[in-house]
């Protein structure tokens, strides 16, 4: 009997472990939704002074690391994609279980939502991040039609069919990465979507009619925050505002004014775009969201605003706030990782590479490949490459056309010579600063180099035999330096993919070993005055 009981228990245990593992892998991990809630649970108790609630407008525009760097303010972004106000209410309710914010900031953007229920994906994003509690169930209940309650209350019913969508992030604990471990909810975006100047809103004075459900929960959220002892700042975060959305924020303003209290205030930050130096041609990721450059400007402005208008402590010298220090460190690194792939001027680019790869503590790894230049001096290269090109223009027949073609070819050659001269000059000056000293300064040859911890780690130039140097960068990433004697090509393979960008010039591949992500793959062809970056498709979802 004992044996049978033990055996049955073992069976249930094995089955349980398998099902729990599957549940963990299959569960939704929306970075713009339920994962943000995990950040709340990771915060030390009662450390968040400014709790920022709302939609993507909040978590893509407001960078707590800037508030920390500027004024020592501890802020947390706690939002969800297309978050209706009733979810915002429950987010606040959940946050108040562990935090006692002094200021609760509420974004108004999604108050234009007129429906009583969001789309299934938005319901999931704004409810599934909660730990199991009555608050979670209430949040689900208010978000879905009554007949759909059970479909959402049992999450596995929603996500068991994800077997086609699983990625490494589903099996790997995202929270183990520094960018998520120290995150304060901010998701930065690197894209640039240039816009013109938005319309003048000074004449837009009317207010939209909010849905009853939105207005009800908006008031409830304000009331809840006030009851907790916090002050409330209702605001519209900057974006490419249009009149119809201005009327929505006006409606929110009307409700705020109805409180007639100093503890509740309203600011439309779109009115201060000039003061914060917002450039609509460069600071927006799309019409609705700021990119990281715009986010920095807004966050700096907000830091000043909060400092002036609220009695918030500067915690930079206090103990127990390491997570904000670390978040800022990670965030600054991410800013650099986003900035480097936008640099096109060779000197600026090489200077940045020198700074990151030349620092022994930086934990960056740089890989350089040189291809297509088989002679050691400029003249020889010019003779071989450029004159050959001129001579190859030998059209038969009409002498006039032949002369014109030759003239054109010579112009091209002159241009090439200038480019190449510039390339050689800059390369000879700057590459030694990366640690590729001897090879570059004395003699240009084909080859590749890897620079780690501020020093040249490996090099191979003008090799005679095939060469293949694989290297494990992280748990998921590998790089290999490869030389084929037959083709004479030096390649850099990242996870099996050839990232060599030019067969006549230099290729740079930069890897951030601390954050475990590739930063850039760029080519600098001898005939180009600019660095050309590969589109690695790194998006905000990666950080």
């Amino acid at each position, binding site marked *: 009997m004992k044996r*049978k009981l033990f055996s049955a228990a073992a069976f249930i245990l094995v*089955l349980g472990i*398998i099902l729990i593992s599957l549940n963990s892998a299959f569960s939704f991990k929306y970075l713009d939704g339920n994962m943000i809630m995990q950040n709340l649970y990771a915060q030390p108790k009662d450390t968040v002074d400014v709790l920022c609630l709302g939609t993507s407008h909040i978590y893509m525009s407001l960078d707590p690391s800037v508030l920390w760097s500027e004024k020592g303010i501890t802020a947390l972004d706690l939002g969800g994609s297309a978050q209706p106000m009733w979810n915002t209410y429950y987010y606040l309710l959940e946050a108040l279980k562990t935090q006692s914010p002094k200021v609760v900031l509420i974004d108004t953007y999604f108050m234009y939502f007129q429906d009583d229920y969001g789309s*299934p994906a938005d319901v999931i994003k704004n409810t599934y991040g909660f730990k199991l509690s009555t608050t979670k169930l209430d949040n689900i209940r208010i978000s879905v039609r009554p007949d759909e309650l059970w479909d*959402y209350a049992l999450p*596995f*019913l929603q996500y*068991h069919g994800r*077997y086609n969508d699983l990625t490494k992030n589903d099996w790997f604990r995202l929270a183990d990465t520094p960018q998520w471990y120290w995150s304060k909810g901010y998701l930065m975006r690197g894209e640039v979507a240039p816009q013109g100047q938005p319309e003048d809103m000074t004449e837009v004075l009317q207010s939209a009619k909010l849905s009853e459900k939105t207005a009800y929960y908006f008031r409830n959220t304000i009331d809840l925050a006030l009851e907790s002892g916090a002050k409330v700042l209702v605001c519209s975060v900057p974006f490419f505002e249009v009149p119809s959305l201005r009327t929505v924020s006006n409606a929110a303003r009307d409700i705020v004014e109805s409180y007639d209290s100093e503890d509740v205030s309203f600011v439309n930050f779109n009115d201060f775009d000039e003061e914060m130096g917002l450039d609509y041609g460069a600071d927006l990721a799309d019409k609705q969201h700021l990119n990281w450059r715009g986010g920095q400007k807004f966050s700096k402005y907000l830091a000043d605003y909060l400092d002036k208008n609220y009695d918030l402590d500067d915690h930079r010298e206090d103990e127990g706030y390491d997570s904000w220090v670390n978040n800022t460190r990670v965030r600054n690194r991410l800013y650099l990782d986003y900035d480097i792939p936008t640099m096109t001027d060779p000197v600026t680019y090489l200077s940045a590479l020198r700074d990151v790869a030349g620092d022994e503590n930086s934990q960056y790894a740089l890989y350089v490949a040189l291809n297509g230049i088989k002679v050691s001096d400029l003249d020889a290269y010019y003779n071989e490459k450029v004159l050959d090109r001129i001579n190859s223009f030998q059209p038969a027949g009409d002498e006039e056309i032949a002369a014109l073609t030759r003239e054109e070819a010579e112009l091209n050659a002159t241009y090439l010579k200038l480019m190449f001269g510039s390339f050689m000059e800059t390369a000879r000056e700057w590459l030694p600063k990366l640690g590729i000293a001897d090879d570059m300064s004395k003699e240009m040859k084909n080859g590749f180099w890897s620079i780690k911890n501020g020093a040249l780690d490996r090099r191979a130039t003008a090799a005679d035999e095939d060469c293949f140097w694989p290297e494990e960068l992280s748990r998921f990433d590998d790089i290999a330096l490869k030389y084929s004697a037959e083709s004479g090509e030096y390649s850099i393979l990242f996870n099996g993919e050839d990232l060599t960008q030019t067969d006549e010039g230099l290729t740079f591949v930069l890897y951030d070993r601390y954050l475990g992500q590739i930063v850039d793959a760029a080519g600098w062809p001898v005939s180009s005055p600019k660095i050309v970056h590969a589109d690695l498709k790194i998006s905000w979802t990666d950080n």
Partner: protein
Amino acid sequence: MLFNSLSFLIFFPAVFAVYFLVPAKYRYLWLLAASYFFYMSWNWKYGFLMLASTVTTYLSGIGLEKLSADGVANAVKKKRAVVALSFIINLGILFVFKYLGFFIGNVNSALKLFGSSASLGVPDLILPVGISFYTFQALSYTADVYSGKVAAEKNFFRYALFVSFFPQLVAGPIERSGRLLKQIKELENVKIWEPDRISRGLTVMLWGFFMKMVIADRICVFVNNVFDNAWTYDSTALVLGAVAFGLQIYCDFASYSTIAVGCAQVFGVRLMENFNTPYLASSVNDFWRRWHISLSEWFRDYLYIPLGGNRKGGIRRNLNVLFVMLVSGLWHGAGWNFVLWGGLHGLYSVGENIFRRVHGEIKPKTFAGKAVKIAFTFVLTDFAWIFFRAESIGDAFTYIRRMFTHIDPWAIGDGSIVNYGLDTRELLILGAALALLFAVDLIRYRRGKRIDDVLFKQGEWARRAVVIAILVAIVVFGAYGASFDPQAFIYFQF
């Protein structure tokens, strides 16, 4: 409630837990209450229809038994009247709810054909689930009491449970009183805690869920796409669509019976097997001995034999077969396409009978010969399924015409198959699941053993590993949940 629903996931263990606790002599009352709850969860009004069927057939049994007593004048005549009354009431209910719309529609078409502008209103009645099943089961009781095969049941509630026993209520197997009612009477003697029986029952249920949720509900995406857009597809897609529907309806229907059998077994009731590897049948007659066995036997015992069966010569026998098959078609659905489907099977059977009479039965001895015979039978039955699945006879003929006129064999190899409704990954999952189904059916065919018979001969952990694998496959690859619109078991509508 559907077997593959959250409600059933709660209902089933709850019913079993209480079944475990109630005094043995009241178990049948508990199961009766649970069965009515199960049935009325679709629509509470349905319960009254089932009750009406139960009351009439129960009273017919009592009446027949009283008329059988000595000294009743004109007993045979009166008994026949009782049987007739029971059949008329029950088939009348069935007719009103299932066939009246179809009947009126045809009358209206006839009137129109003869130039009349008059038309009858078509009643807006919802077909109660499983009405064909419990009506036939209840009528078999009347017929069995009449023929003296069983004694009339005096306890109304026991009898009511026989008609409404929830595992097999809405999609069979159609049980006979001689088996099921007898077991219901002995429910109090069932040893409740019998781990082996319960484990086997649960394993059988699990396999049923696998067939339904992993195979049938996956392949139906493919089938629906091809049949709904048949006019845009060519032969490869259409042939595969027809084959896929054959597999879908098998997995759908057999899964229900399998779950029913397993579920009943957990409660200590053994239901008859309703399917026995039908696609490994070597003739159409053999197919009907393996497909929906309980219905085939019902028609055999209560229609074919009373019509004279094979006792009145070859021509009459074949006419009887044809008639039974047409009725069987009509039983499956109120539509001419179902009648045609039944008629086609009737013709197959008659053809086989004639061929056997003229040529003698072909009994291949080689594997290849047997395989060809099985394949040929599958082609015939699968071809008939086109009429079954198509929305109308016109659609069926369009489907078949394109199958033979728009030949595109290159589509087999050019990757088009992934555009028919399931992508490569889904097709791989489906292929693996079908391979498993084929293996299970082959063991059944060769050794006559069910999946639980095979598994329970293996070592404990080997068995558990298989159970875990099937369970995980259902949990991960099964069709259920919010993003999934549950495909009602196809046979519910009959």
